[in-house]
């Protein structure tokens, strides 16, 4: 395992220590692994909290700031944070108007945030929850854990953060979040496995001439494995399942996301490929992101997220955001 780390067990807290040093505009609770804005938003506004296992940086700590999250709760690598820590974050940022929990759909995240919401309501804090489940790689079924929450989480945190910042109430913010979740889909692939620090070796073996299609962001094996293919072919395998699942003709916000180990030159190349395919299919790309926004440690690969947009979403998208990972208008 080749990593810029000290003791594998200390990766999370030492990385958060770096976040604290790099970003005086954030407050980092090194005991609870909770990251908040140093200057809280105004009283009477809905607060937005997200969190989950670490290893997906800049998600979530990198999205704390004006126009996006009020707090992030960082679990151990690929492990949901515990309810008490989510509760620490929730209490810290509640400004009397309730708190939205943005939860990616993994059993661990769902159960821990559910317990946290119970704790919050015991303390009189109103909590709304949105479960993000955008990953079309997972064959959806009522009888399974359902689809994973992946790339759409980034877009949703930005948009919902903007709505909360402009003073929408909790019910509206929750409704918006659910609407966004219903209008966005993602699909990912990997060229290599990632290596969890405490595991010390790659989560799966992927031969030099093979790639994995339909992976999540935790080094889970994907839908299937196949021989390495050109970018144009990979692009098709990302675009088609998304379009097969959701009619996204018309304006859209598109993200071509890197998994952590793929350099930007490749991500732009992939973006060129997916953008042509999407446009051929009638998608009008109104806004886009290209880069590492929700990663899987050092995994090489990428994912595509397409969110059907409208004037309201584009307005929220363009609203100022000032976080380490996403910044404009500020």
């Amino acid at each position: 395992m080749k990593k810029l780390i000290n003791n594998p067990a200390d990766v999370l807290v030492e990385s958060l220590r770096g976040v604290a040093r790099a970003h005086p505009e954030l407050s980092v609770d090194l005991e609870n692994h909770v990251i908040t804005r140093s200057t809280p938003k105004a009283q009477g506004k809905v607060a937005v909290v997200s969190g989950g296992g670490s290893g997906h940086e800049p998600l979530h700590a990198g999205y704390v700031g004006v126009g996006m999250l009020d707090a992030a709760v960082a679990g151990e690598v690929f492990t949901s944070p515990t309810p008490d820590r989510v509760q620490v974050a929730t209490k810290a940022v509640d400004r009397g108007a309730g708190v939205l929990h943005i939860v990616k759909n993994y059993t661990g995240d769902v159960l821990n945030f559910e317990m946290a919401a119970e704790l919050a309501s015991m303390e009189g804090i109103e909590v709304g929850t949105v479960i993000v489940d955008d990953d079309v790689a997972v064959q959806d079924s009522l009888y399974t854990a359902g689809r994973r929450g992946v790339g759409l989480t980034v877009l949703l945190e930005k948009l919902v953060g903007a709505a909360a910042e402009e003073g929408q109430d909790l019910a509206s913010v929750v409704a918006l979040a659910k609407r966004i979740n219903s209008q966005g889909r993602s699909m990912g692939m990997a060229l290599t496995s990632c290596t969890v620090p405490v595991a010390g070796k790659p989560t799966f073996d992927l031969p030099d001439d093979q790639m994995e299609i339909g992976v999540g962001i935790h080094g889970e094996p994907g839908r299937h494995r196949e021989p390495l293919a050109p970018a144009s072919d990979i692009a098709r395998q990302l675009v088609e399942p998304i379009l097969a699942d959701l009619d996204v003709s018309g304006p859209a916000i598109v993200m071509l996301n890197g998994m952590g180990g793929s350099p930007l030159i490749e991500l732009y190349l992939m973006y060129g490929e997916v953008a042509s395919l999407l446009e051929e299919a009638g998608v009008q790309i109104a806004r886009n992101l290209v880069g590492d926004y929700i990663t899987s440690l050092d995994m090489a690969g990428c994912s595509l997220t397409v969110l059907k947009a409208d004037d309201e979403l584009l307005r929220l998208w363009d609203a100022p955001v000032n976080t380490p990972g996403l910044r404009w208008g500020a």
Partner: protein
Amino acid sequence: MMASVDTAALVDWIHRFRDVIADKREWLTELDSAIGDADHGANMARGMDAVVAKLDTGVPDTVDELLKTVGMTLVSSVGGASGPLYGTLFLRMGMAAGPVTELDAAALAASLRAGLDGIVARGKAEAGDKTMFDAMAPAVDALDAAIAEGADLGAATAAAATAAAAGRDATEPLVARKGRASYLGERSAGHLDPGAASTTLLFETLAQAATESS
């Protein structure tokens, strides 16, 4: 031969479980690498180390407080799916046990049944979903059945452990319908479920503690 487990025996159980988790940590992580995210060993070890550290600062006098302490510590130290699930198991066991200082076989079985119900309430697992439920439900059933047939505590918990192991082994061919493994669809078949594996260790150490605790 013991007729009941007191708090000391329960603490012994907890220690045994922590030790075997530490021992089998790599194996549990291996199992989770195949169909999950390679952290079940680390999660369980982190949780049980925290539990033992907590108990080192003082053991509650009553069974309910002891089990609730174990549950709360798991909930607040593990995260992941297993944290709330194992945590709920112990929390509900404690609530069912009440402020007593020991559990006879029937009380132990009732307490475990309540814990199992708690896991189902949280995780909505059903038989054959390829989860810890598939080891735990047969184990609790076996415990009940053995007690009904008049088995003593040692024999009954041993039967539970055997049933857990059988349940665990039976997860191998299953296609997962809950947890991370469910994302794999057909590819999840051919592997043991990590949570069923740790649950089996839980019942095996319970049987040891019930037999050997002094």
